[in-house]
């Protein structure tokens, strides 16, 4: 082997191999996340939510689902705070806002931990039921305004919660 003559060629060859390996691996986890998100009802929301969490880089499907479940929790907490704000500015809506606080509290204190436990335990169906309940609770909050003859002041907020919960649910279903 004429080392002196071929060593620049060898370097180039090695670099080429390295670049290909790097290229493929960089594409691999993005491709994985994108393919998962394509199977949820809101591709853009899914992608945005997952990629905002650095853990998404190395996460398997369970890990990705847990990321979205965590985002559901964060959104739930923000929603509860939003409702608190509304209670000050809209005392006329107090009864329904109290109800909405109750149901969002349930979503955060019961549904989300249930989903996390179920996913870690390898019994994802209970997690699916938990996240499905988040959707029901936010829908119930929304429709209760109408039942009291009032216009909902938080339609977008409730819808956002529902959309995110549906993404989480779709991911959990992939684990079944």
């Amino acid at each position, binding site marked *: *082997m*004429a*080392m002196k003559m071929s*060593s620049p060629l*060898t*370097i180039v060859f*090695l*670099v080429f191999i*390295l*670049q290909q390996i*790097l*290229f493929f691996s*960089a*594409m691999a986890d*993005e491709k994985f996340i*994108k*393919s*998962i*998100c*394509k*199977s949820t*009802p809101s*591709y*853009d929301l899914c*992608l945005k939510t997952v*990629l905002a969490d650095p853990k998404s*880089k190395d996460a398997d499907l369970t890990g990705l689902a847990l990321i979205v479940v965590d985002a559901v929790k964060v959104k739930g907490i923000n929603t509860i705070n939003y409702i608190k704000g509304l209670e000050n500015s809209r005392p006329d809506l107090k009864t329904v806002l109290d*109800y909405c606080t*109750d*149901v969002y509290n*349930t*979503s955060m204190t*019961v*549904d989300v931990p*249930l989903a996390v436990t*179920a996913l*870690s*335990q*390898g*019994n994802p*169906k*209970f997690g699916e*039921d*938990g996240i*499905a*309940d988040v*959707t*029901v*609770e936010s*829908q*119930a909050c929304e*429709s*209760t305004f109408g*039942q*009291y003859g009032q216009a909902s002041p938080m339609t977008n907020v409730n819808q956002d919660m*529902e959309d995110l919960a*549906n993404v989480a*649910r779709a991911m959990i*279903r992939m684990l*079944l």
Partner: protein
Amino acid sequence: MHMNLLDMNTFFFRSTFPLILLTLFHNIMTSSSDLENPLAASYAPLPDGELPAGNNPTIRRPRKAALFLVVSAFLVLALVALIAGNGPVLRKELNTEVAPPSTTSTPEKVTPLSRGVEKGVSEKSFRPLLGADNSYPWSSNMLDWQRTAFHFQPKKNWMNDPNGPVFYKGWYHLFYQYHPDAPVWGKIVWGHAVSKDLINWRHLPIAMETDQWYDEQGVWTGSATILPDGQLVVLYTGSTNESVQVQNLAYPADPSDPLLIKWVKYPGNPVLVPPPGIDTKDFRDPTTAWKTPEGKWRITIGSKINKTGISLVYDTEDFKTFELLDGLLHAVPGTGMWECVDFYPVSKQNENGLDTSVDGPGVKHVVKASMDDDRNDYYAIGTYDAHKGKWTPDNPTLDVGIGLRYDYGIYYASKTFYDQSKQRRVLWSWIKETDTEASDINKGWASLMGVPRTIVLDKKTQSNIIQWPVEEINRLRTNMTVFKNIVVEAGSIVPLSIPAASQLDIVAEFEIDEKTVNRLNGDDVGYDCVKNGGAAERGALGPFGFSVLATEGLKEHTPVYFYVAKGVDGNLQTFFCADQARSSTANDVDKSIYGSIVPVLKGEKLSMRILVDHSIVESFAQEGRTCITSRVYPTKTINNNARLFLFNNATATKVTASINVWQMNSAHI
């Protein structure tokens, strides 16, 4: 491969590190030869004219080649480490790839997320009830009423699958998945209760807790086997401290205690761990064992490979060491994970049940599995080859998971046992809540068991089983009211004045008018209980049946009905449905419609039986050919407000009904 700008940035960014490394290594490689021969670099002239050591290729080449390989290997490893441990990459411009219309990335049985109106309707809940009036919040009156009078349920908190049902030393035992801390699933233990009659229960202490590493995350579902000498053994799934699903052996601490209060876990547990090729989270719910021709014991455990539901088979002589058979008992592609598999013989001629080990020419075998994907229990009838450990369905188009269901409503994780005292096969099932978690938390409990049912092969059709509430339930009947030959004209409703209509047993026969049927032209518009408009959608020959848990004026009511459709060929198809769309004015409860076609043979009258027990309604058509279990959560139809109506919402035919209604006493549950 499409390579966008960001991807290029990504890999150029990442590749600079290895390039640096590469250059470094290359330097090392070239300088290593200097180290080997320090004098070569100086090229000091040698007295005898020898070439400097660095120029001797025969000695250096193998070493350099080896070094080259080692360094390359190291480089690749360093590369892999780099990729794995790389920091966050900026992805702000990641919308460059446009998503095509949503498709699933793996081929699988597609279960739509939402039915009906897509916006604002999820599968858990529900069809929004227009014009609902104020019914919030749930009062404790409303929630208290939901507790049942004669369905098994613990005093509080969460229950799911029935476990290890067995008749032992004069007592029926029921164990069950129990979460003692909250009305929601969690770290599960085995609850325990005993009964003399399957109806009145005595609650006992927890049978098994999560006290070992191999069931630390949950004492999950399992089954009991009674050995010929009367010994009782239990195999159950444990979720280990690392969430691996394993099978464990347990047995009574004192076999002479008929109440089986204390249990011992075999010190050598686990006796089974996930075999190669099976995921650590896809291995659960071992069955009751049955005898093989070789005299060994055989069990089956459900699992999946990708999206194919499968049933693994193990043989054992002592329940401590097992041999995995090469083949599967059965598998069906596209059905997903098989939970709570059940396998049992049914007699082709006789009306009694059979011990799980019975086999022979007069016997068919049933394979049942709970489908994780769609939360329903499916079964199929077929032939078991004991020598091969394989089972084949009689009708592959109605195979496990794609054919018949035990029940077309809420019914999951069911399990049978052979009751040797009455020679019957008895079916238990978990009936979950279909209200919100918030309500479950408020009322402090969640889930029921269905009324236990006997299972036999339908001798007339030979292609389905028949389920019927155990006859002991009839002992709760009281105050019978009989209605004979009531004629209900098309489009009319008849109130049946039955008090205490929250606890009822209704048995009825219906006849539609033959002349009307004959003069009708059929049509080929299909009917589907789930997708059509429920009891409010009128056809020529249906719907007709009962409205249970109804208010005066039907503000809330739950119709259970037949819908007969005449095809263009003149043949009749009969559907049996339960409609929850108007079951409650609350807007956070499930308002789906359940049901299925029911086979009606020539000469048979249409018959149905309905057990009403507060928030659960169990409906049976044609003596148990088609069954529907519903959960109902009314806000007004509670306490003494519940009514019963007979209705005929067909447009053409009149209906003649003969009915027996009993009020049901409460059991000790």
